[in-house]
């Protein structure tokens, strides 16, 4: 008798449970909508600013709508069944034994098949539109090379090499200047992901991948490496600066120039060129032509160092040279252990690399 009452109480709880779950789903939905509407620094996939991201956004709304409707229907059905058919206190004999129904089985096979077909056709269109897009004349070409744990960007037609901060021109729909990226890797797998501009594509050693973006608005778009690539995968951040055509042209002209250095920082330059720095870093117009680390010719034109791990300030630069592990433990930059005098001279030289 006690057991029966016990069950009845729990049976009564099940109704509210369904309510709680529905509420939870609603909270989830509201929350995701709210967060999609927050500040510009949030790299949300629901705030696209480029055609590939935009087509994916459109498709995602369709998929969300279809799955949302299925969710509501099946959820309600389940909630109804567990509320309506729970055992009552007036415990009678066994319920009628039903073994199945072919008509019903056919119905709930055919309807999902039709839904799948519709979803697939919508998806296939978007796959084709994004993947098989032709490169128009006037497109910017960039070769992005993933390294542990930073990004190398080479503009073969413009003769520019830079790192971690990609500059591209805004693309006016009436006069499109999209950027086509060729993706390579120098070591392990990486993945290029700037959610507001496009879906991610992996950078895989021994393989050439492609992707493209055509940002509609100027500004800074953040992202980061999305394929686990080793110890500092977390701090392989990615910044894409979308410039107006004039800004971009000016940036290109600046970047094309070799490094300018004044006599005042000759000592720092000597230290740079006689220590291990040049094994890994390039400063164009000097003997430094290493390829393992980022090109430093225009280091000061960048807002961050260590692939976005720290703002590019003189103090951070000194920390980075002396003790990279303080900023990014496990990065491949060695601790240089210079004395204070050499460190100051070296930093002064680096600060002239504009």
């Amino acid at each position: 008798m006690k057991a029966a009452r016990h069950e009845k109480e729990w049976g009564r709880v099940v109704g509210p449970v369904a309510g709680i779950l529905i509420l939870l789903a609603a909270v989830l939905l509201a929350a995701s909508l709210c967060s999609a509407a927050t500040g510009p620094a949030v790299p949300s996939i629901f705030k696209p600013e480029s055609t590939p991201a935009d087509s994916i956004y459109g498709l995602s709304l369709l998929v969300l709508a279809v799955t949302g409707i299925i969710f509501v229907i099946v959820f309600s059905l389940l909630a109804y069944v567990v509320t309506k058919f729970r055992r009552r206190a007036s415990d009678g004999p066994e319920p009628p034994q039903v073994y199945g129904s072919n008509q019903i089985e056919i119905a709930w096979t055919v309807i999902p098949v039709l839904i799948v077909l519709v979803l697939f056709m919508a998806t296939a269109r978007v796959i084709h539109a994004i993947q098989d897009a032709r490169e128009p004349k006037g497109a910017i070409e960039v070769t992005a090379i993933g390294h542990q744990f930073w990004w190398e960007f080479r503009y073969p037609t413009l003769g520019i090499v830079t790192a971690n901060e990609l500059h591209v021109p805004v693309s006016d729909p009436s006069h499109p200047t999209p950027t086509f990226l060729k993706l390579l890797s120098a070591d392990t797998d990486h993945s290029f992901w700037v959610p507001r501009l496009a879906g991610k594509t992996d950078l895989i050693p021994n393989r050439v991948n492609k992707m493209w973006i055509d940002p509609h608005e100027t500004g800074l778009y953040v992202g980061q490496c999305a394929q686990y690539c080793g110890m500092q995968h977390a701090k392989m951040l990615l910044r894409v600066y979308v410039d107006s055509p004039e800004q971009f042209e000016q940036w290109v002209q600046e970047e094309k120039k070799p490094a300018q250095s004044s006599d005042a920082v000759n000592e720092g330059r000597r230290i740079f060129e006689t220590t291990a720095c040049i094994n890994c870093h390039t400063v164009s117009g000097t003997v430094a032509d290493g390829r393992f680390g980022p090109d430093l010719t225009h280091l000061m034109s960048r807002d961050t160092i260590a692939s976005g791990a720290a703002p590019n300030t003189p103090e951070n630069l000194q920390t980075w040279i002396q003790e990279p592990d303080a900023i990014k433990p496990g990065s491949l930059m060695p601790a240089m252990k210079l004395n204070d005098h050499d460190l100051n001279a070296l930093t002064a030289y680096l600060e002239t690399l504009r």
Partner: protein
Amino acid sequence: MASETIALNLVDRGTRPIGDRLHDWVVTVDHKKLGILYILYALLFLVIGGIEATIIRIQLVVPHNHFVSPQVFNRMFTMHGTTMIFFVFMPMLFGFGTYLIPLMIGARDMAFPRLNAFSFWMTAFGGLLLYFSFIGGNGLYGAGNAPDVGWFAYAPLTSRAFSPGHSTDFWTLGLLVSGFGSIGTAVNFIATILCMRCPGMTLGKMPLLAWLNLVMAGMVILAVSPLTAAQIMLSIDRYLGAHFFDSQAGGSAVLWMHFFWIFGHPEVYILVIPAFAFVSEIIPVFSRKPIFGYPVMVAATVCIGFVSFSVWAHHMFTVGMTSYANSFFTITTMVVGVPTGIKIFNWIGTMWGGKIQFRAPMLFCVGFLFQFLTAGLTGIMLSASPFNWQLSNSYFVVAHFHYVLVGAILFTIFGAFYYWFPKMTGRMYNETFAKWHFWLFLIGFHLTFDFMHIPGMLGMPRRIYTYEPGRGWEIWNLIVTIGVIFQIAGVLVFVFNLLRSLVKGETAGSDPWDAWTLEWSTSSPPPEYNFAKIPVVKSRRPLWDIKHPEDPDWKYE
């Protein structure tokens, strides 16, 4: 029924010295003891894997946290994933299968009892070998020498250039050894189910649990073999100078992905099909109705088994396949949703018109239905390859597969624990504690994994040991970590309940649920060799026929 003649075997069980009794467990070839060994072993690793998950969540509770170093974090997520898949879910489900299959098909043991013992000990030693990595090498400092390449260990991160030392070797060899165990168990399941059924039990009259485990075992043989091959190739790369995956020397990183995922995707179904099996046994008993559409359930399972071998590259939508390949794997992945949906509808059909009793096993199965529905729908989102280009490798994916593994599979495992605990131990668990367990774990699960979808849609990739503030991710990570507290509380109640009931539980009797399959016809716990007299069945629910001679099932099947 059969139980009275069996008392002979139970003579002086409690009076023998503890050394002798332990020796019995080590050398046993009895499927019931091996099943329990599998389950206990998996429970131990569930706790270990849970601790690793907790460390991960503490590290991510705020941006730029310094709870653990990046290296320890990377080791934690690698070990968490590897442990949960290979040393919790597989042995747990194999354990229930090993325990239940002979009982449910009216057999006295598995087809190959000694292979059964061999398989268990291979799995056990595989896990121990993997965990030896913590104390080999650097000792416990910085999590020792534990692997840090991620649970799918993408090449070329596993090559000697990027993974010096022996951490990757522990991973490779641990999985290789336990893989032999898995294949042995799969062979044993197939042989047992095909050859050892009691008289009258045609394939069409087997309990669904046997059918589903048969399909699962076939998939294990097909899926674990490529993984084993890949592990051997990787070892040859590392020690004998081959270049299968060594991209520095012209090998292919993508080849590893194909090898891994042709294992890895069917693996998901290898885990979820036994979970379906539990649900297909528990829901009918607590709804007091037979399973709705038995033949369709079998067909849908076989269909899932086949189709799941053609979907592996949906894990690789971002590696730059052609638009044709992306379209192909999109449609195959979406198609898996159809038989899976049929199953959900059939379970609803089973409950429809029933008299549902919400005891703990049923509560967990109802939780499973709601959560598996959601997991399936996020799976459909991920199958649309362009949408996948945004979501893959983000926290959305992490949330999705935890919805499957925890929300669906772990929930049904808890349900199975409560359902068969009386059979395995002869004692009832405590219903109040079981319900505390359910509600705490349900709340914890939803706090953690519902909100984990959101940072993924806001651009947060997985496997990062820290993240930048100001990207809208902080609040969600905080909520996710808070959920862990509830989950831990739930699991503590669960373990406490098991231990307490083992000592203090009421005597269960042979058939506490008024159920219908053969395991409930013998005593609890069943005697050695299960049945004094091999039963003869006429329908899928032999005990229903006995209890309702006026209205037996065999008239309708």
